[in-house]
């Protein structure tokens, strides 16, 4: 090929790659939008099947007929379902989840208050789970059948067979009540409440920013137990999946070829094999984060952690439907994005996936 045609071919290649990328992005957005609509449908339908009269919930049972009719018209209870859905959808897109019955604040405001607490715990647990889980999985795969493998497999197995609420209770009983090694339920001792101004919502970070080291240590000691327990459960899943992916890679021919070059097994495993695996791991980590958020309801109940999960549980028991549905939407949306993450990540890092589409 002459230089001119080669250059033309190269630029064609670029155009094709960009077109492919754009097509993939559009596909992805379409999927996400569709799933999001599905989620809103489900929450809408759930909200409509409640046996409680929503108008009564607002006006109370002592209101006059006129008030009742006025509020009914406002909410649009008697409108056809598709119209009601449309109104609901447009509200949701404007982040209007209605008002909470308990707090009398907009649900959105309540959620911005409680969400950081959930994030702080979930992020720390995820960090622990990943930083420990991935190396453990690799070690288990490279020592297949031997004691390292058995220990990791068994430890993981115990981890994802345990009910998180039970493990939390046992942990509190043992490490807080009997041994006194960590602080108990809640994020901070009551005496430290409201000392540190909220910047990120993560008390550990905020207290460091404010220079309040006592608050920092107290917050940390409250975090240790729930984060360890959730970290262990995350680790169980991550280690197991890492092991499984690594075993798949170690069977491949390129591992043999790279060994035949004379490279050390360390490099073959940690650079080559792991390099082929970490994309799948990102998906696993995203899913783990999703399940941490999902299980937050249980965890936060056990540890009296004032996050989104506890908020939803309290709303549930007070029949505060707006709050429950709002929380469901938020977690659902985050979950959808985490699930779709792999579609985004793959082409970015796997050279084989870039050329297609």
């Amino acid at each position, binding site marked *: 090929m002459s230089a001119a045609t080669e250059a033309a071919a190269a630029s064609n290649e670029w155009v094709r790659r960009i077109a492919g990328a754009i097509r993939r992005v559009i596909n992805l957005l379409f*999927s996400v939008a*569709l*799933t999001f609509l*599905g*989620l809103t449908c*489900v*929450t809408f339908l*759930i*909200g409509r*099947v*409640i*046996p409680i009269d929503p108008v009564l919930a607002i006006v109370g049972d002592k209101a006059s007929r006129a008030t009742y009719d006025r509020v009914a018209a406002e909410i649009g209870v008697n409108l056809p379902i598709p119209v009601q859905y449309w109104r609901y959808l447009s509200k949701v897109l404007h982040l209007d989840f209605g008002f909470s019955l308990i707090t009398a604040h907009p649900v959105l405001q309540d959620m911005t208050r409680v969400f950081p607490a959930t994030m702080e715990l979930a992020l720390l647990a995820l960090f622990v789970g990943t930083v420990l889980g991935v190396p453990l999985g690799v070690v288990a795969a490279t020592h297949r059948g031997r004691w390292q493998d058995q220990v990791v497999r*068994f430890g993981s*197995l*115990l981890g*994802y*067979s*345990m*009910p*998180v*609420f*039970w493990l939390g*209770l*046992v942990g*509190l*009983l043992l490490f807080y*009540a009997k041994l006194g090694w960590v602080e108990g339920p809640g994020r901070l001792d009551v005496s430290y409440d409201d000392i540190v101004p909220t910047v990120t919502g993560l008390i550990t970070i905020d207290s460091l920013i404010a220079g309040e080291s006592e608050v920092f240590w107290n917050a940390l000691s409250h975090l240790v137990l729930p984060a360890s327990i959730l970290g262990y459960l995350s680790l169980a899943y991550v280690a197991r999946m890492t092991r499984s992916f690594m075993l798949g890679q170690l069977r491949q021919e390129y591992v043999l070829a790279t060994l035949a070059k004379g490279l050390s097994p360390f490099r073959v495993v940690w650079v080559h094999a792991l390099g082929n695996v970490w994309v799948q791991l990102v998906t696993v980590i995203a899913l783990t984060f*999703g399940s941490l*958020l*999902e*299980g937050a*309801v*249980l965890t936060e*109940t*056990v540890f009296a952690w004032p996050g989104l999960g506890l908020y*939803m*549980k309290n*709303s*549930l*028991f007070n*029949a505060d*439907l707006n709050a*429950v*549905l709002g*929380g*469901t939407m938020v*977690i*659902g949306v985050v*979950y*959808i994005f985490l*699930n*779709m993450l792999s579609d985004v990540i793959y082409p970015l890092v796997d050279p084989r996936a870039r050329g297609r589409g």
Partner: protein
Amino acid sequence: MSAAGLRIGAPAGWRGWLLDPAPTSRRQARLGRWYRAWRGLYCNGLAMTGLVIVLALVLVAILAPLFADHTAAFTQTLQERLQPMSWAHPFGTDELGRDIYARVIFGSRITLTIVALVSAIVVPVGLGIGLPAGYFGGWIDAVLMRITDIFLAFPRLVLALAFAAALGPGIENAVIAISLTAWPPYARLARAETLTRRHAEFIEAAELQGASHLRILFTQIMPLSLPSVIIRLTLDMAGIILTAAGLGFLGLGAQPPAPEWGAMVSSGRQYLLDQWWVATIPGLAIFIVSLGFNLLGDGLRDVADSRAG
């Protein structure tokens, strides 16, 4: 005789017959397959433990009155509340004086019911969506898979929570809520299995013989897809039990006075410090059953993988 038949020190007798790498009859081949699978499972001590646990669950649930006294599980004897473990009460008593051992035994019925109901819903729905999607392809596939993907992206526990908030607590609603989010992986699995077999020659042969699509799906493809579905189900079962227990813990499952294990943990929470057994023992039951399904599922999958080569 090929070189593959050359083995030093191969077993003799009926074991050798079953393990013969070159079977001479269909019966020998099939029996040999089952024997190899059983040996694979048997050699795996952990998988056998799992099998024992699962069988124990089924046995205890069905024959519960043989193992414990029904009245002890439900009669409130307030003078006997919060008794520690003893000969009379192997696991102690709860805050209303009921024998915890008996409640755990009878609670196994609830667990088994949930397992059975969810399986009975999830497998047919998953197969019913996945098989046609893989078999017919085209727009049927696209639509069905879109629907599957939408449900796949829903958070299970949270959705069950919202469901219960709307419909009220109860075991039926819990089962529905769990099933709604549990079926998508089976549709995907059934579709994948169908796709690998869709263009196999024996399917073409059946088509040429005049078999209708429905017949092919039912008699040929579905039985071949079942093993991986069952293995997946066994592995999922642990998660389903944990989710159901979680719902029970939040008060959304079977309602009191039903001895649902998750609810028992919840009501024992306030007495955790001094009467730890009230909350801990039911949770241990959940853990053991979940562990059993995981062990069994792992073992079954190892056997399936090793046979697939």
